[in-house]
């Protein structure tokens, strides 16, 4: 409890004893890997038989396997093979699989697992990842937790598989905070909602009495910052998603909006509107000291820090139309980085791995989602049409989530930063303004 704010106790141990030595793991590393950089990309065929379990936990085993399979499938990096095609039935994960049975269905990787109930009621979840062609175990782990945490176990195992086979950190054990929207367009009720990255476990953080917008995760704690209307001026708030405690950020003489945390979670950067002008301010959450970062008669908004905290990207219409600028985190000279032909750029967000800034791009009546390097090079549009908006990066910087409203109401979508694999994210009602959490573990 003390070291993790959710009621979740997890212990992890390597599962190497038994069938494979660590030397073999090293040798196998080059044998099976998804090349995530290649242009003509082929997802890796992978087999995921149901986790072995005693009769009482059969369903749990199936559910864990299904969540892992769905995660890997949705990532676009893997092509899970239908269980109906499997030749070997996995009954014991401590013995070597019959690799020819998996080769014959063209599986390159195989995941076997087991769920065991402990005497104290906790669950032990084990998995092994196999290189089918080399006939070797690539990795193996076991985890202990309470049975109601089975989804998180499935996400953590998904991340371990993803990382071992792609060489990049995973993003499955993470959550999304977003604006849940219900009711007709002219009387929309907006609530803050929280869910797992795959859409499961939805929870509402506000009741819908007040208009709430632009929630953003703290990169290091279970906190969200957002804008809310209530009495008086609209304000930026902090909300602890575990305790539901809420506080106003600062005491500014005007409307504050468009907040975002610094990478260390210690500061909130936001826009303050006074007399029609919107400028950027940052507030230290401990000392409550506020610093003005811009001083223009323009609209400066949507600030986002680089992962090292040294720079800020934001949008401004100081040059006549909305464009993206980059400046030092303590203010100073801002460099414009977007120059698209007649296009306007907004809602910039810096990737957690630093390589890209994602944006919304308006041109010829369309609203696209794209990425650009922080120096202004390498611009690519990943999704276009009417009306896409509000990108957020997965914790590994590989996937972008955004919202799309074609007139009926907004929905959430994901797309790979290569532009491949656009998918709708399931939500109970309309949804907008997604913000991806960091990895939970």
């Amino acid at each position: 409890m003390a070291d993790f704010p959710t009621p979740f106790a997890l212990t992890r141990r390597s599962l190497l004893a038994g069938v494979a030595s660590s030397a073999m793991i090293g040798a196998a590393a080059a044998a099976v890997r998804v090349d995530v950089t290649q242009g003509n990309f082929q997802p890796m065929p992978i087999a995921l038989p149901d986790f072995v379990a005693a009769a009482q936990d059969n369903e749990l085993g199936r559910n864990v396997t299904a969540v892992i399979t769905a995660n890997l499938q949705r990532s676009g990096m893997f092509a899970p093979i239908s269980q109906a095609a499997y030749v070997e039935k996995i009954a014991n994960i401590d013995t070597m699989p019959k690799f020819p049975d998996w080769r014959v269905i063209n599986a390159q990787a195989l995941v076997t697992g087991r769920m065991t109930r402990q005497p104290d009621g906790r669950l032990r979840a084990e998995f092994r990842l196999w290189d089918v062609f080399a006939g070797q175990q690539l990795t193996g782990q076991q985890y202990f937790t309470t049975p109601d945490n089975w989804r998180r176990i499935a996400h953590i195992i998904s991340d371990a598989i993803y990382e071992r086979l792609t060489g990049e950190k995973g993003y499955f054990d993470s959550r999304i905070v977003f604006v849940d929207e219900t009711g007709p367009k002219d009387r929309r009720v907006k609530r803050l909602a929280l869910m797992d990255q795959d859409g499961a476990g939805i929870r509402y953080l506000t009741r819908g009495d007040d208009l709430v917008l632009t929630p953003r995760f703290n990169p290091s704690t279970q906190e969200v910052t957002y804008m809310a209307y209530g009495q008086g001026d609209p304000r930026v708030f902090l909300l602890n998603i575990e305790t539901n405690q809420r506080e106003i950020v600062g005491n500014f003489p005007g409307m504050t909006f468009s907040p975002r945390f610094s990478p260390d979670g210690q500061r909130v950067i936001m826009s303050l509107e006074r007399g029609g002008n919107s400028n950027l301010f940052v507030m230290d959450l401990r000392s409550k000291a506020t610093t003005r970062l811009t001083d223009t008669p323009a609209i400066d908004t949507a600030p986002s820090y680089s992962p090292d905290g040294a720079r800020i990207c934001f949008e401004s219409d100081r040059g006549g139309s909305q464009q993206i600028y980059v400046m030092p985190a303590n203010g100073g000279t801002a460099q414009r980085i977007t120059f698209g032909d007649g296009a306007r750029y907004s809602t910039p967000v810096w990737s957690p791995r630093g390589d890209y800034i994602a944006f919304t791009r308006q041109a010829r009546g369309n609203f696209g989602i794209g990425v650009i390097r922080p120096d202004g090079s390498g611009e690519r549009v990943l999704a276009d049409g009417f009306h896409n908006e509000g990108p957020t990066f997965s914790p590994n910087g590989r996937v972008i989530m955004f919202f799309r409203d074609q007139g009926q109401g907004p929905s959430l979508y994901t797309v790979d930063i290569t532009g491949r694999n656009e998918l709708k994210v399931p939500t109970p009602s309309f949804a907008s303004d997604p913000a991806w959490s960091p990895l939970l573990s």
Partner: protein
Amino acid sequence: MMNMEKFARGLRFAAVVAFALGAAACATQQPGEQANAANVAAPGSEQDFVVNVGDRVFFETDSTELTPQARATLDKQAQWLTQYNRYSFTMEGHADERGTREYNIALGARRSQVARDYLASRGVNPQRMRTISYGKERPVAVCNDISCWSQNRRAVTVLNASS
């Protein structure tokens, strides 16, 4: 003559009664009462302001400049607000949906500020005015074409009911 006077007084009384009924009907928002409203709104009432003066002005796409029509409406508002100076009010700024959320909040703020400043320049005491922006979050028209968008790009003068 006496009879005529009595009749006229009676007529005036009847008119007052009719007005009261009309106002009551409007207050409960009976459909079809809109046409009557202009005739029956009590001078100085919120209804009078909305119906006979006009509570909103409209903007061009992505613009915060007041059109001649908007100025004319605000001139009438300033006159009315000076006459009925018991009201405090909120100037709401709104944007259409063809902009990103954060920008539209700022754009709505600019529109409310421009309208507020104009009223102040026409002699309305700034102490009576508060501004707020709803960005694109409170559309009044909900189709997806130009006719709707132009109605949503607006600044609305909302009288404080308790004032």
